[in-house]
């Protein structure tokens, strides 16, 4: 198996799917001659030409909607958003059209489209460029929302997303593009809607996704030194949530902490808590805790930026709290 960067894994997925199916095209700002703002589309223009790797004008709503129209008549667009911050301008097309076409047409239409791009905070960019927005999209029936943490999942889930008949929202980790991992070659597909136990443990379950997985892993390693065995459940898909996997893990460890980069209020983690307390309350030995980004706008100042985001020490403190090893 090859060691690939997250961005290379995505590039491989795009390349393989474009080769497999000429209905697949990629559109977005700077995806062509510039080879992608984050170099995910490196080399694709040369291989597939300008009708299939399209440099769009800075018109997020326009090219998102145009791609939805193409998907309505059977093409399979992959729409790269330079970052999800800018996709806010395209929200009408994603939410009011893509997510609702099948319903409003009474099952006549389908919309096989992938909206993908980097999400998440950090990098000293202040409020407008630094936010984890997945909860916004997880809210809408008609969309599937995915957020892989590892290069292998990134490749396998993008391939599944491109083949899926529904509109997919894919959050990549802006700060994960350069991380490396083993990635199976060729036909490696990861099913959507399935969480993954990334680390087996017996004392507590850490539930997370995307970049926060790495903080959880760091915390688990620290905690192991103190004799605490942590299970890490990487949700991978945020809509639909893999209830079965969540419940199975919590029933095993009887304790859970959810780590989410986004804001606490109306976050995805809130729904995970709801699933656990309504279906596995009797299995719990402690209240479920959440470690989230603070409910404030992101600051530029380094110390404030750090304080806003979850990190391993915050996760460790929460784990100790649910184990009653440390007070609130």
């Amino acid at each position, binding site marked *: 198996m090859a060691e690939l960067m997250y961005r290379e894994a995505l590039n491989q997925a795009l390349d393989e799917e474009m080769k497999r199916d000429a209905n*697949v095209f990629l559109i977005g700002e700077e995806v062509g001659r510039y080879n992608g703002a984050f170099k995910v589309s490196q080399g694709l223009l040369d291989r597939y030409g300008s009708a299939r790797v399209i440099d769009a004008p800075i018109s997020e709503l326009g*090219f998102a909607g145009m791609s939805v129209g193409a998907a309505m*008549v059977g093409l399979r667009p992959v729409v790269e958003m330079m970052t999800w911050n800018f996709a806010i301008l395209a929200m009408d097309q994603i939410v009011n059209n893509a997510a609702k076409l*099948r319903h409003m*047409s009474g099952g006549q239409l389908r919309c096989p489209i992938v909206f993908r791009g980097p999400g998440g905070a950090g990098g000293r960019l202040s409020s407008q460029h630094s936010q984890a927005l997945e909860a916004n999209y997880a809210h809408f029936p008609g969309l599937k929302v995915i957020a892989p943490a590892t290069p292998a999942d990134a490749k396998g889930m993008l391939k599944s997303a491109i083949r899926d008949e529904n509109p997919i929202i894919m959050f990549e980790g802006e700060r994960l593009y350069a991380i490396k991992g083993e990635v199976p070659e060729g036909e490696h597909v990861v099913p959507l809607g399935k969480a993954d136990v990334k680390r087996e443990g017996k004392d507590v379950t850490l539930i997370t996704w995307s970049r926060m997985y790495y903080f959880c892993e760091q915390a688990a390693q620290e905690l192991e030194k103190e004799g605490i065995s942590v299970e890490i459940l990487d949700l991978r898909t945020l809509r639909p949530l893999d209830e079965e996997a969540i419940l199975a893990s919590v029933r095993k460890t009887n304790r859970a902490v959810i780590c989410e980069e986004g804001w606490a209020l109306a976050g995805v983690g809130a729904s995970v808590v709801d699933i656990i307390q309504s279906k596995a309350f009797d299995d719990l030995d402690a209240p479920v805790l959440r470690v989230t980004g603070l409910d404030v706008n992101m600051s530029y100042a380094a110390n404030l930026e750090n304080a806003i985001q979850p990190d391993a020490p915050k996760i460790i403190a929460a784990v100790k709290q649910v184990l009653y090893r440390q007070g609130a």
Partner: protein
Amino acid sequence: MASAYSKDLLLTMYRKMFLIRRFEERAGQQYGLGKIAGFCHLYIGQEAVAVGTNEAIRPDDYMLSAYRDHGQPLARGSDAGMVMAELFGRTGGYSKGKGGSMHIFDIEHHFYGGYGIVGGQIPLAAGMAFASRYRNEDRVTVCFFGDAAANQGALHETFNMAAKWKLPVIYICENNRYGMGTAVGRTASVPEIYKRASAYNMRGEPVDGMDALAMYETVKDCADYCRAGKGPVLLEANTYRFRGHSMADPATYRSKSEVEEERKNDPIPKLRAFALKKKLAADADFEAIEEEVKAQVDAAVKFADESPEPDLEELWRDTIVEEGEEDVRPRQRVLGHNVTNWPSYPSGQELKVTWDLEPREQAEKEDKKAGLVR
């Protein structure tokens, strides 16, 4: 204007315009009876736009519209009973009653929907046109929108791309002079909407939207232009809605005399007078059509009334496509017709994409000029 119209064409247009008029009058009446709810935007007065356009394009060309969307599918040939059943929120509707008045979809007749967000359908049409070019099909896409929708950013973003990429799409602005209660000139810095095309180096022109034949001639010419790969078109069909914005609107923002004046321009008697004058049809022809259409619309209302409400089970269908799930063919589902002309598209293996958005030689030339080596 060419004058060699066939009797068949004139009578077909008359039949469709009269059907839309009659259908809408009955829809208004059913709204009053509480059988139709929500917003119900009638098309009365604008019939010539949909019908003239439809007769000028091919049945397999794509069409889509906004929320004032009963007229276009009827012009395309959709089943009047099923459109009415959709307005009633019944199983017999095109979307099983899930879409209602603002969201009629009839994919069998290549009508890709009505949309409730002002201007939201404009980018979709460019995408459908893009797909036609991508697959080397010579289809055009026709997209209707209102004068107020012309002020949405979606239109400007889309026109820029459609013109740059020469997409085969005909945008038809149905300028009925009001967006809800606001007269065009009060919100548009350039109230002649067609002029906006010039900002995108795109063909744009006005057309008399109260004249079915003018619509027919102009759209025919535009369709040829699009099919020849010359790019998109913006037509501004100057028309008038005789009723309020929706059934909930008494339309007090315009004067009685204005409406009376416009009613003299009614496109339906106009077409009839033309045909009589040219001796292409006789009064008896029109009277027969009117009787048939009245019976057709009565039957449509009866069909809608007798159609059951959807099962609660339907709540859980048609949101996410499950693996292996087929698309619903409404006429097959409701009337048992064997619908065979359902759109099918080439698989990825069969498809050869030969089109270049930015031809390579040109790109390389530009790079060289800029001192870049590729």
